[in-house]
């Protein structure tokens, strides 16, 4: 087990390095630089050159890369020239919002998918199972953004049950109960949209896993020994099928990344995804690269965590 874990963790190092190089190269390829918009438009070419020299932009690329990495490790992501503030500060609040959205969605995904999957698997070929299977089938073919639009249209505008944009109603006192409730209300519709589409994979997996396990010999043996039906399910089948699902936690988070970008845009939710779409149009590249790096690292770490927990839960994976 340790061998797999350590080997898997070692792979992360080149992945992160490659990712950072890619992000760096992208940043260099982008037109304009962080000086654009920061300087007095009347500044002479000479003074611009001076600043460039001082900031080290005439150094060879590997030195620049090195400096950039050193800054990164100190938590310095550079300056946003549109917002005129350090990127870390700019991203801070957005990051919190996105983390809340993702976390809430993942919880919803589990809360919805586990019972659906169990019902569907345990009573397979019942009417309920057919309904659930039909839902997952449709869910697979529905792009999240269309679903989110329709949800917003129906529940946000038509019924007016939910706020249609923002993360909190204006004029609330942070820390008050009202404030928390308002945030919660703003979070609800986006995360329900994410979750209802996000569950389909897990439901299908759980269903087929349970149906598979049901037919295994050790289940027949358990029944033959007189174990009650609920004992068979709770002790034998679910234990086998639910552990991997729990280990999927990391993958679920990774899968949500592109989803949050759509959902944040549609619901006007001020998270990192919305910020990304905003700054890429403004060509504020120091923010763009920081966001890509953050999402990339999140993906790397999420996959790593799931891979390792999965290898503990299911030893077959370690053989390779």
């Amino acid at each position: 087990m340790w061998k797999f874990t350590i080997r898997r963790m070692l792979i992360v190092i080149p992945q992160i390095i490659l990712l950072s190089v890619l992000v760096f190269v992208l940043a260099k390829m982008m037109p304009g630089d962080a000086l654009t918009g920061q300087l007095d438009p009347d500044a002479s070419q000479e003074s611009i050159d001076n600043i460039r020299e001082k900031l080290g932009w005439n150094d060879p690329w590997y030195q620049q890369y090195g400096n950039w990495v050193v800054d990164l490790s100190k938590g310095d992501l550079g300056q946003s020239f549109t917002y005129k503030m350090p990127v870390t500060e700019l991203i801070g609040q957005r990051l919190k919002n996105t983390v809340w959205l993702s976390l809430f969605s993942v919880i919803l995904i589990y809360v919805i998918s586990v019972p659906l999957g169990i019902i569907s698997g345990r009573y397979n070929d019942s009417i309920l199972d057919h309904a659930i299977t039909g839902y997952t089938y449709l869910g697979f073919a529905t792009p999240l953004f269309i679903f989110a639009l329709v949800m917003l249209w129906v529940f946000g505008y038509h019924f007016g049950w939910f706020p249609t944009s923002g993360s909190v109603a204006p004029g609330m006192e942070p820390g008050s109960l009202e404030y928390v409730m308002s945030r919660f209300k703003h979070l609800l519709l986006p995360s329900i949209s994410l979750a209802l589409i996000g569950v389909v994979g897990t439901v299908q997996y759980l269903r087929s896993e349970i149906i598979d396990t049901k037919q295994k010999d050790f289940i027949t043996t358990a029944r033959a020994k007189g174990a009650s039906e609920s004992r068979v399910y709770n002790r034998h089948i679910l234990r086998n099928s639910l552990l991997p699902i729990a280990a999927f936690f990391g993958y679920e988070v990774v899968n949500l990344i592109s989803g949050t970008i759509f959902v944040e845009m549609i619901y006007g939710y001020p998270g990192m995804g919305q910020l990304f779409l905003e700054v890429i149009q403004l060509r504020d590249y120091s923010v763009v690269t920081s966001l890509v790096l953050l999402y990339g690292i999140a993906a790397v770490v999420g996959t790593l965590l799931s891979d390792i927990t999965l290898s503990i839960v299911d030893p077959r994976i370690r053989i390779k």
Partner: protein
Amino acid sequence: MSILRIEDLRVHFPIKGGIFGRTVDHVKAVDGVSLEIEKGTTYGLVGESGSGKTTTGRAVVGLNHMTTGKVFFEDKQIMNFGKRKSGLHKDVQMIFQDPYSSLNGRKRVLDIIAEPLRNFERLSKAEERKRVQELLELVGLSPESILKYPHQFSGGQRQRIGIARAIALKPKLIIADEPVSALDVSVQAQVLNFLQDIQKELDLTLLFISHDLGVIRHMCERIGIMYKGRFVEEGTTDDIFHNPQHIYTKRLVAAIPDIDPKQRDASFDIRQEVEVEWNEAYNKYFDEHGLAYQLQPISDTHLVALPERG
């Protein structure tokens, strides 16, 4: 003149381990095998599964990488079988054990048998078709079946297609890797007899790999017995069946079922004796790792793996 000579062939597979996947040990599938086959004869390679007999055959045609050792074909060393320029594909061919997986299910019989022809001979479509039909007839299949697919044939017929493919280029040596083990017993004799016919007709040399002593006895002039990657005994069919020296060979020979019911008690007694000897003299025949010793000649034709005396 020998057609094939193998000198001290070793095929070791690495075992990967540790965090960085370094090679920590080796599986010694073939561990120092030497043999020589005379032109026009059949050499039998016998052993239980995992004894390295198949790996030996596959190493000769380059399907397994030789760790060390030399292979000579007609006194010329085979350096790189894989290269088409070597021309060895024309002279050395292989018949595979499984008649199902060894034929590509997506190809017609015509394409399967014509594959070697297309690689080495430039024939027109009509010539190629004629050759394939001749080959089919030679292996006893209807020439009309060239447009059929492998799944339309039975196991024995499929093996014949495999043989037709192997002899298409008129090779001098064929390595037959358990060619009948996957077939029904009723079809086995048919295919074996037919292999012998073809051998006579084309003056073929066969390296016949099998775990079935009965089949080997029927087919071979010379026999090598393998155990855990090494030879335990080598000799003519007569040497092996009537004068087995190594305890492993004795056990194998004693285990051959006898059809004559009157002999039943006698063969049972022999088996008992051999079993006793196996238990008592095991250490005499195998070294501390349970492996066979080097071969020592005990007659002109007969070699046995015994510890060096003195």
